[in-house]
C-alpha cells in the first residue's frame, strides 16, 4: 500500500521521506561483490525503478551500491550456441538489438511487451529479475527459454537456471549476465492478455515444451516435458494458484491450461504469437 505502519496507524510517505543512505559507485564487478560483502546493509541500484518504489514504502539500507559506473555489463554478445545479455542491458537495448532480431526474434518480440517506453529505457534485464516481483514477465520468459543466470560471487562465477527461481539466487552476489540458448527449432510463445491475473509463456522445441506461469503464484511456476503430457501435467503439477479478489484460484488454474494449449497449437501451426 506504499504506506508505512506503526502500531498507531498508517503514514503515507512521499519520496521525500526516503531514508538517507551512503552511495558507493564501484567500477568493476569484483568491486561490487566486495562492496556487498563489506557492507552489512546494502542494496544494489541499476535502473532503480523497483528499488525506489520499495524505498518509498519505507525499505531502507545503509548503503546503495550504484552500478552505473561498472563497465562490461551491458553488452549483448553472440557465443557458440547462446546469446549473452549483460545484466545491465536495458529492456530498450534488448528491444533494439540487431543480434537478437536475427537470432532470437520471438524472444525479442515478447520482451518488447514489458512495461512501457519509460520503463524500458531505464529498467534493466537484471533489475527485472532481481526485483522478484510476481507480476513481472522477465523471469517467466527466461525460464521457458532455458536461460541461465550468471552471478559473480566472492568464490567466482555461479550459473543457475532461470527456471529455478529467485529462491536459488546466491546472496552477496552480482548478477552479471543472462545466457539464452539458441536452438534451431526453438519457438517461443507468450500470452499476457489476462494480466494481472495470469500470464503464460511456452518454449517449444519439436515435442519438448517448457511452460512458465506468471502472476498466479508467489513466484513463477515452470514445468517441462512432452507436448502430449502438458494438460495432464498442468492439472496435477500446478500448485494451487493464488485466490484473491483479483482472480480466483480456479479461474487461474483453468486459464493456465487454456493459454498453454493455445500457445502450443499456434506455434505448431506456425501462427505468430
Amino acid at each position: 500500500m506504499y504506506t508505512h505502519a506503526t502500531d498507531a496507524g498508517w503514514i503515507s510517505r512521499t519520496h521525500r521521506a526516503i531514508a538517507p543512505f551512503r552511495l558507493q559507485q564501484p567500477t568493476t564487478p569484483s568491486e561490487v561483490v566486495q562492496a556487498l560483502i563489506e557492507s552489512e546493509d546494502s542494496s544494489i541500484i541499476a535502473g532503480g525503478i523497483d528499488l525506489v518504489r520499495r524505498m518509498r514504502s519505507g525499505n531502507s539500507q545503509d548503503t546503495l551500491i550504484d552500478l552505473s559506473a561498472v563497465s562490461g555489463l551491458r553488452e549483448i554478445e553472440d557465443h557458440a550456441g547462446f546469446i549473452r545479455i549483460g545484466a545491465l542491458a536495458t529492456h530498450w537495448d534488448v528491444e533494439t538489438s540487431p543480434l537478437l532480431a536475427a537470432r532470437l526474434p520471438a524472444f525479442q518480440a515478447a520482451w518488447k511487451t514489458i512495461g512501457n517506453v519509460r520503463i524500458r529505457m531505464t529498467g534493466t534485464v537484471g533489475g527485472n529479475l532481481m526485483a522478484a516481483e510476481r507480476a513481472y514477465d522477465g523471469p517467466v520468459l527466461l525460464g521457458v527459454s532455458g536461460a541461465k543466470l550468471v552471478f559473480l560471487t566472492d568464490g567466482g562465477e555461479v550459473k543457475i537456471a532461470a527456471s529455478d527461481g529467485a529462491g536459488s539466487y546466491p546472496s552477496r552476489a552480482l548478477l552479471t549476465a543472462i545466457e539464452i540458448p539458441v536452438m534451431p527449432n526453438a519457438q517461443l510463445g507468450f500470452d499476457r492478455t489476462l494480466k494481472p491475473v495470469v500470464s503464460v509463456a511456452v518454449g517449444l522445441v519439436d515435442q519438448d515444451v517448457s511452460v512458465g506461469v506468471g502472476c498466479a503464484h508467489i513466484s513463477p511456476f515452470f514445468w517441462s516435458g512432452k507436448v502430449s503430457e502438458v494438460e495432464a501435467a498442468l492439472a496435477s503439477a500446478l500448485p494451487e494458484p493464488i485466490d484473491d479478489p483479483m482472480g480466483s484460484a480456479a479461474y487461474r488454474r483453468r486459464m493456465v491450461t487454456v493459454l498453454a494449449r493455445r500457445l502450443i497449437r499456434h506455434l505448431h501451426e506456425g501462427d505468430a504469437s
Partner: protein
Amino acid sequence: MSGELAFVSCTVNGVAREFHVRAEEMLIDVLRDRLALTGAKLSCDLGACGACTVLMDDKPVSSCSTFAWQAGGSEIRTVEGLAGADGTLDPVQQAFVDNSAFQCGYCTPGMIMLARALLDHDPSPDRDAIRAWMGANICRCTGYEMIIEAVENAAAASQEAGK
C-alpha cells in the same frame, strides 16, 4: 540524521548547472524547488503515471523516481526548455495547442516531453507506434485520441518544416 552529499553537474535545458544534493534527493525536487521548473508534476510518486516525465539524455524518465545524482553528466530537458528564446513553441507544444490535446493540463508537460522524445527518436512514426509510445503516460481527462492526433500533426509539421 543527515545523509551523504553528492555533487552533481549536468545541463538543464542547455544551461550548465551544479548542485550539492543529498544522496536520497530526487531529480523532480531539484527541478521544481531549486530551479523553479514546476512543469513536471508529482502524482503517483511511483513512476507509473508519467506526470513527472523529463528527458535525460533523450530518454523519457520519471523524475519522481530518479535520484538527482543519477542525472550527473546528463542533459536534462524539461517542458520549460522547449520553446525558442523568442517564445516560438516547439512543434509538439504547438500541436498540443492547435489540437486542444489537453484538458486539466496536469499530465501535459510529461506528455509533451514523452512525445518530444518519440519524434527525436523517430521523426515519422505511424499511428500504432505513436499509440504504443504514448501509452506510457496516463491522462485521465482526454481519452487520448486528441493527444495521438496532436503527435501525428507535430510529426507532419516538423517534416514539412524540414526540422
